[in-house]
């Protein structure tokens, strides 16, 4: 039996019906896995290898590319585009923190306070998933427009002076500034924060809150010592689900930002689809991937929820 399991599964012959059922049972998982795994290997893993090889190639579109192990591409790409890398990390981190601050109360509300409104609020959180996010992002252009209500309100409250001073906005504009891009990122990835938070909050036994109250904990203490620690799996997966896509996003930076707010996704997109400099684009996306994988691994280790993955 052991020799059978050691054989490479995809090459094993199809188990004929007459064979004893036990043998069929042994091979069943491999047959179930085969098509999906092949798909992921050919269209996910293999492309990554292709990209790795592209990043160390030299040449031109006309003459073709050759692998020359030209690792300098990485160095050149980094030194040319480090501001965009830094910006991506900062914007994505800011959006993640904002998502957590905004998403937590809503997730809490749905889990503990919504009562019979729970389903309706859930629907309103999920429904935007099914409507075009590009159309909704374009709507932010209207909301944040120069001379629009948001700009006017911020101006009246003198918040714009502060954000101008911090370099988040420029003059009396919000559109085409870092603030607009972070606002768009926060908006677009907020549901990815709310849903895991809600799932982990919902699992908390309500009696724990009562117990904390019986032990004279104030609501805030109960939250800090009971609710929040128990919701950590949701916090971790929520922050990952917002940070990772936000760091690679180029839609918000393109639609709501300006040339001063370009993120690394914009650079990769331009290099790949317009400049057609494949080695640089490949090197940039490889650096982004490595940086994100490193950060994610570190974060999961630190937060001690390895079982999440």
């Amino acid at each position: 039996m052991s020799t059978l399991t050691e054989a490479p599964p995809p090459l094993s012959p199809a188990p004929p019906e007459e064979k004893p059922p036990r043998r069929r049972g042994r091979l069943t998982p491999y047959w179930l896995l085969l098509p999906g795994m092949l798909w992921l290997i050919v269209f996910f893993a293999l492309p990554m290898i292709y990209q790795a090889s592209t990043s160390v190639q030299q040449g031109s579109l006309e003459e073709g590319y050759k692998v020359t192990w030209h690792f300098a591409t990485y160095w050149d790409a980094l030194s040319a585009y480090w501001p965009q890398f830094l910006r991506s990390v900062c914007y994505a981190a800011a959006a993640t923190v904002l998502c957590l601050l905004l998403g937590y109360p809503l997730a809490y509300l749905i889990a503990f306070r919504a009562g019979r409104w729970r389903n309706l609020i859930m629907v309103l959180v999920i429904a935007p998933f099914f409507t075009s996010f590009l159309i909704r992002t374009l709507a932010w252009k209207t909301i944040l427009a120069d001379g629009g209500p948001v700009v006017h309100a911020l101006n009246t409250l003198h918040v714009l002076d502060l954000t101008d001073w911090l370099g988040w906005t420029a003059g009396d504009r919000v559109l085409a500034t870092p603030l607009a891009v972070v606002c768009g990122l926060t908006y677009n990835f907020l549901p990815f924060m709310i849903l895991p938070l809600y799932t982990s909050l919902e699992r908390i036994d309500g009696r724990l809150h009562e117990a904390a109250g019986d032990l004279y904990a104030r609501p805030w203490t109960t939250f800090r010592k009971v609710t929040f620690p128990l919701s950590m799996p949701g916090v971790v997966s929520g922050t990952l689900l917002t940070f990772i896509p936000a760091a690679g996003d180029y839609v918000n930076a393109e639609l709501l930002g300006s040339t001063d707010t370009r993120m690394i996704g914009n650079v990769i997109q331009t290099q790949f689809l317009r400049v057609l400099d494949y080695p640089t684009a490949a090197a940039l996306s490889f650096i982004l991937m490595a940086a994100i994988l490193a950060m994610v691994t570190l974060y999961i280790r630190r937060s001690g929820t390895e079982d999440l993955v």
Partner: protein
Amino acid sequence: MSFVTWLKRRLVVIAGLLTLAYLLLPNVVVTVFSFNKPKGRFNYEWQRFSADAWKDPCGVADMCGSLSLSLQIAVWATVGATVLGTMISFALVRYRFRARGAVNSLIFLPMAMPEVVMAASLLTLFLNMGAQLGFWTILIAHIMFCLSFVVTAVKARVMSMDPRLEEAARDLYAGPVQTFVRVTLPIAAPGIAAGALLSFALSFDDFIITNFNAGSTVTFPMFVWGSAQRGTPVQINVIGTAMFLLAVLFVLVAMVVGNRRNKQKA
């Protein structure tokens, strides 16, 4: 009760509702601006009320064509990803086998990868293979990134399932096929449905991966993207509003049906 105490008690509710308002504000704007009569090519400023766009939603060249293309791709991507993903999740939950760890990481990685990285690498592959970019390359890409989400959704459901139910079916002389169709599949169905729904939404709305791998084919998100540069017709807001209303209706119905089922079981 003073105002401050009142506010303190309801702080969570107020903060939560404000977030909800933030989430829905763009949908409100999209709806309002679907009744606008814009002056120029762009529909960013309110001019005056008009229902013209609602009377003629397909009045913009190529828009409804891109919409139907996106729908077709989303349907096939959902079918493909759901079938492949469900098979993988059953293998992962029900069987002990070698390479489980490797399979699990291969499932996890696409979800932990920024879209632009996957998009660029897939395009590298297609260019190297000399593949014709278009419908098929989009479909391949969509099945690839939806697959992991289906596996995660179905796995969660199958894992919480009592294996004794299947044993009971076998004890009652149900064959393997009968057990699967009559017992296993109905119990796993909500997970499969959730995975399929998620796939559909992800595929229908995907822009980044499609933008890289579509060539000159234009899906609906790509049409919207292009119109952000060339001029946004009001019809885009009409479609956006209709999609939102349909989604609310659909999710509501799904929830009501789900609740009924749960009550019947209880």
